[in-house]
């Protein structure tokens, strides 16, 4: 009898119309974007790193086809940042400060937390793409078709996702202020080893051979294709990036279950 009563009770009180559930996802994503767009110390390094590099190497020191090539590689470099840092640093800090615990106790819809951060990272990656495109087209005079521009922006918005998953995994391994250091230790060597700073052909043979193990290598192949410098098959690279996303996501979820 008691069971029947409490079941009725719970149906009454917990009825949450789907519009409100959707609203909760929206509110979470909006808050996540607002809070980081208002934190210049967080957002500016992500935006400036790749744009300043591109201004130096793609506009001042190189011209023509080199600028086109560098637009692709600095796009890949710039896209990775919001994923790694947006997810990794914020998760590490929120685990430390108790915010994640509070959100798990509150009736936040499952997934809204991750989706919010994902939307934030995709927007930040798109901003990076747009800034680099503006520099490329107007300062470096790289000629791009509308399709190419759209392809590069699309690659940016979705190419950030594997790095969100990697950042999330790192954020589950470390708590608090140590995260940016660890993430840079992954970010910078990985970018170098997959040819985002210097063309791969200028690196030692053995590094060229192992480049495909880095997810950033595959992202770079896609950005190169977007600006018309890679005519090879794209599907293997897309699949590789999806694979990395799934692997890092599973590792992160497993780690979160264990350490909270």
């Amino acid at each position, binding site marked *: *009898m008691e069971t029947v009563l409490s079941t009725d009770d719970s149906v009454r009180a*917990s009825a*949450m119309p789907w519009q*409100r559930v959707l609203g*909760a996802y929206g*509110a979470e994503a909006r808050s996540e974007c607002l809070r980081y767009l208002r934190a210049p110390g967080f957002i500016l390094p992500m935006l400036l790193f790749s744009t300043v590099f591109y201004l130096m190497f793609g506009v001042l020191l190189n011209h023509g086809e080199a600028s086109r090539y560098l637009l692709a590689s600095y796009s890949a470099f710039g896209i990775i940042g919001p994923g790694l840092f947006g997810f990794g640093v914020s998760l590490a800090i929120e685990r430390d400060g108790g*915010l994640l615990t509070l959100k798990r106790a509150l009736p*936040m819809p499952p997934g809204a937390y991750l989706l919010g951060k994902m939307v934030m990272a995709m927007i930040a990656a798109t901003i990076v793409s747009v800034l680099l495109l503006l520099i490329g087209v107007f300062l470096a005079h790289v000629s791009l078709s509308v399709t190419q521009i759209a392809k590069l922006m699309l690659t940016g918005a979705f190419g950030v996702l594997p790095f969100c998953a990697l950042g999330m995994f790192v954020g589950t391994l470390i708590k608090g202020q140590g995260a940016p250091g660890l993430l840079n230790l992954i970010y910078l060597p990985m970018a170098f080893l997959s040819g985002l700073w210097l063309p791969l052909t200028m690196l030692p043979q053995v590094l060229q051979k192992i480049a495909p193990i880095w997810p950033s290598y595959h992202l770079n192949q896609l950005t190169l294709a977007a600006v018309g410098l890679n005519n090879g098959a794209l599907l293997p690279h897309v699949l590789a990036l999806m694979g990395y996303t799934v692997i890092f996501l599973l590792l992160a979820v497993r780690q979160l279950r264990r350490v909270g």
Partner: protein
Amino acid sequence: MPNTTAPIARLDGVIKTYGRLTALDGADLQIRRGELLALLGPNGAGKTTAIALLLGLIRADSGKVELFGQDPQRIDARRRIGVMLQNAALPPTLRVNELLRLTASYYPSPRPLAETAELAGIGELLSRPYAKLSGGQQRSVQFALALCGRPELLFLDEPTVGMDIEIRHKLWAAIRQLIAEGCSVLLTTHYLEEAEALADRVCVMAHGRMIHEGMVEALRSRVSLKRIRCVSALDVELVRSWKHVTDVRRDNERLHVTTAEAEAVVRRLLDADAQLSELEVQRAGLAEAFTELTRDADQSSTTHQREAA
């Protein structure tokens, strides 16, 4: 059994270990509709673990954990609760009204924003960024987030730490108003005065178990100690040497005596000092009861270990 007296949240014989440490060792707890239950106990007694289980943050090794008759990890159950944890660093760049709107979005029928702000006394702070608030104001905002969803059960974990007296009393008034609306509250606090002011029932924990559960009055009356206060010139050491006197302390001209036999000690005080004035006798408060209970639990637990060894 009528539904109104069925517990809305409960732990039933719950065991939870972290490696070799046993945080909960057969814990039982029931929270009934419309009551304020204060969960008391020294640090490490298992209060935080008990709350984490009821919030669905962790799973029990064995025993039963229920929130509105459901597993607390189900979001349906948690849509009926409000939560204020001991430490939660909220997003510093968000404004108070943005934080309230976000948290309210998780609930099926939240309170209007203005009503929440009014109840928590943060009407003035709505457009301020969270980072710009004082520690006490931040706690008030966290309290507002806890009640914004019109919860049926409110978890308040050390809510008044870092609040000044005025804000603390405002929070107490708000809690009383919520209870009057039919909301239940599970409160943990280090301030026994707070439990005494608010609680209907108290549950005292030690070593992962509930060592006492009952009405506040009943707990107080378990303690046989009385407090005698008077203005007297008698020597502290002399009074201390008397039979039945457990403690004596002087506070300017006032003498404070703690004893189990108030009548005998008062008689002797009056005999010894003809000038004695402003005599008061009081039953000891929750603080003394609590100290005595947890001391007993400590002793029995050490005997236990000795027997086991």
